[in-house]
């Protein structure tokens, strides 16, 4: 017969491999073929799906949850702790052979009947597991942030080089891959001799990559919880969260929800006829319907109501709200980094821009300056924090911190999302305080801005840019300090327990 198996153990350096060797030897001695996937710390080579499909039975000898267990669905399975395989390999092979024979003789019986009680060990606490899930999502999202963010920033730089004085950054954002106005549609009118088109090309590709941030974050959080079945509901949920303007906080919700729903559906006991189509049809269909349906129907209205309330609150304050308005707008910009609260503040700023007309010191221009300065604080603050205290951050976060300098300088708040998604409470608290200070100071200094976007690439369009830079630097320093303090406290607490 042909068998496949998976072994794993808590440390991942000894039992995993000993069990694999014991099983493969025992199988060989009994005249069978066996291939074992060692899910240990030396990395594991996944068994080709064709080999799994051809196998007569599966042996799981594991102390950790089997990764991508879905691949083995429907096979007669022997499920034991890792030590059984080491001490009693031949008995497990015999058990697997019996399970395979039984399944062949009774094609309608459920393969689950051949399983002794699983010996899965959950050793991690709820907090650790939540953090592991979030970090998985973040680690898959970071390359999208870096690629998209740097492309957008390069687009601004090139545009600014072509059209000096800051107007290039305003011009370049008018372009799209398609656009009703053919002059701004790269698909229709890309001209290799027009440098502005090259800048626009960088910008639109970056924007396309950014569209994946929340779907990838959400999808891979769900993947961490439920393995492969989590991907479809997670990614679709994240895309819907983006469309609804719910930002990365919405993505965290859809990711966790999709993971739990997919895990639950995967556990359903179904008739053998249905089991074959479970992974490809039933699980994605049902879990996506439930996850996204719940998100739209339950959370759609509260998000809309929140945005409406914030907008009318800002409108009642009016553009002349001065330092208090700057403080509020700053806090909103730093709160959810592209989510609904941030979007209301940003829209308030850009809407005013249209009303400001040509006056050079209209209050609307001060609002726009405060909004942009505050939006630059979070990525810059985190870039500074990772530079000052790298030990407080994971390796992917440190790498992302380097890109965040450029992203923050270009007013791309998304550079901070990987940090905030992995550790929402501490990062958002620090960001709100730092951004609020910057917003208030920008107002106090009376800086103005005529561009809706661009960061330091529109510096020539900023009135009193010295005040703008000081306000920004103060907010960034405060935020970085808060992040370091909050994270160190957590760091020490964890060490004390461990």
């Amino acid at each position, binding site marked *: 017969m042909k068998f496949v198996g998976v072994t794993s153990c*808590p*440390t991942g*350096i*000894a039992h995993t491999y*000993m069990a694999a060797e014991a099983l493969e030897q025992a199988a060989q001695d009994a005249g069978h073929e066996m291939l074992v996937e060692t899910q240990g*710390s*030396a990395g594991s080579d996944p068994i080709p799906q064709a080999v799994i499909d051809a196998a007569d039975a599966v042996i799981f000898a594991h*102390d950790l949850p089997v990764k991508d267990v879905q691949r083995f669905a429907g096979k007669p399975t022997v499920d034991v702790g890792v030590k059984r395989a080491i*001490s009693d390999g031949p008995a497990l092979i015999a058990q697997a052979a019996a399970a395979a024979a039984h399944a062949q003789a009774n094609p309608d019986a459920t393969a689950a009947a051949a399983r002794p009680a699983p010996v899965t060990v959950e050793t991690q606490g709820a907090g650790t597991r939540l953090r592991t899930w979030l970090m998985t999502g973040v680690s898959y999202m970071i390359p999208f942030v870096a690629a998209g963010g740097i492309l957008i920033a390069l687009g601004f730089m090139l545009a600014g080089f072509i059209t000096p004085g800051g107007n290039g950054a305003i011009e370049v954002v008018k372009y799209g891959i398609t656009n009703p106005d053919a002059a701004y549609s790269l698909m229709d009118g890309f001209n290799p001799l027009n440098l502005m088109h090259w800048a626009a090309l960088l910008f639109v590709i970056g924007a396309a990559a950014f569209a994946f941030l929340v779907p990838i974050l959400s999808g891979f959080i769900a993947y961490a919880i439920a393995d492969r079945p989590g991907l479809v509901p997670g990614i679709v949920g994240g895309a819907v969260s983006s469309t609804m303007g719910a930002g990365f906080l919405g993505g965290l919700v859809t990711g966790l929800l999709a993971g739990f729903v997919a895990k639950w559906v995967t556990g359903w006991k179904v008739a053998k006829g249905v089991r074959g189509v479970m992974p490809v049809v039933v699980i994605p269909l049902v879990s996506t319907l439930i996850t996204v349906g719940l998100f739209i129907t339950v959370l759609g209205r509260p998000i809309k109501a929140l945005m409406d309330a914030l907008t009318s609150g800002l409108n009642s304050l009016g553009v002349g709200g001065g330092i208090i308005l700057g403080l509020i707008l700053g806090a909103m910009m730093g709160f959810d980094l592209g989510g609904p609260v941030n979007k209301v503040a940003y829209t308030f700023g850009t809407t005013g821009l249209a009303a400001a007309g040509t006056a050079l010191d209209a209050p609307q221009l001060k609002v726009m300056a405060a909004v942009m300065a505050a939006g630059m604080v979070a990525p810059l603050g985190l870039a500074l924090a990772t530079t000052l205290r790298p030990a407080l951050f994971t390796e992917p976060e440190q790498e992302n911190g380097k890109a965040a300098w450029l992203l923050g300088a270009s007013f791309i708040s998304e550079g901070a999302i990987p940090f905030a998604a992995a550790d929402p409470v501490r990062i958002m608290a620090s960001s709100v305080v730092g951004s609020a200070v910057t917003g208030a100071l920008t107002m106090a200094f009376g800086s103005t801005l005529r561009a809706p976007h661009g960061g330091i690439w529109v510096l020539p369009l900023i009135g009193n840019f010295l005040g703008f830079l000081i306000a920004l630097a103060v907010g960034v320093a405060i935020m970085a300090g808060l992040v370091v303090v909050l994270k160190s406290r957590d760091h020490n607490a964890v060490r004390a327990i461990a």
Partner: protein
Amino acid sequence: MSLISTAQVVLDLPPTDRHEATRTMAQTLVADGRCTDLDLFLDDVRKREEQMATGLPGGIGIPHARSAGISTPSLVFGRSASGIDWGAEDGPATLIFLIAAPDGGGQEHLAILAKLARKLMRKDFRQALTDAVTETEVVEIIEREVVNA
């Protein structure tokens, strides 16, 4: 640095309990800087033993841990004529393999440890180590069967 040198071979462990035996073996790692924090490492090994004793059928004990107290992936080989209880059902362990891995070690070294773990299941490998007379012989067997295999 290689996985094991003659300093990491203890051919006649005194009769004692497994924690003392582990300490005796771990001390050989301190002298040449493979272990930078003995107490931390022993603590990590003990935690792993408490999770589940690492004694295996056939007179084998494999105390092991990934630990911040370790700088180089290392193996210490210990032999006890009278045997030391390592929690296996079929009796005390006469061959002890103390496996020490750094926290977050490189893939290459972890692959060698994986190969070692697989070799431990081989009767001829265990017999050769039982029969070895000198420390050099033990190191040669391990180098030949695991590191250069």
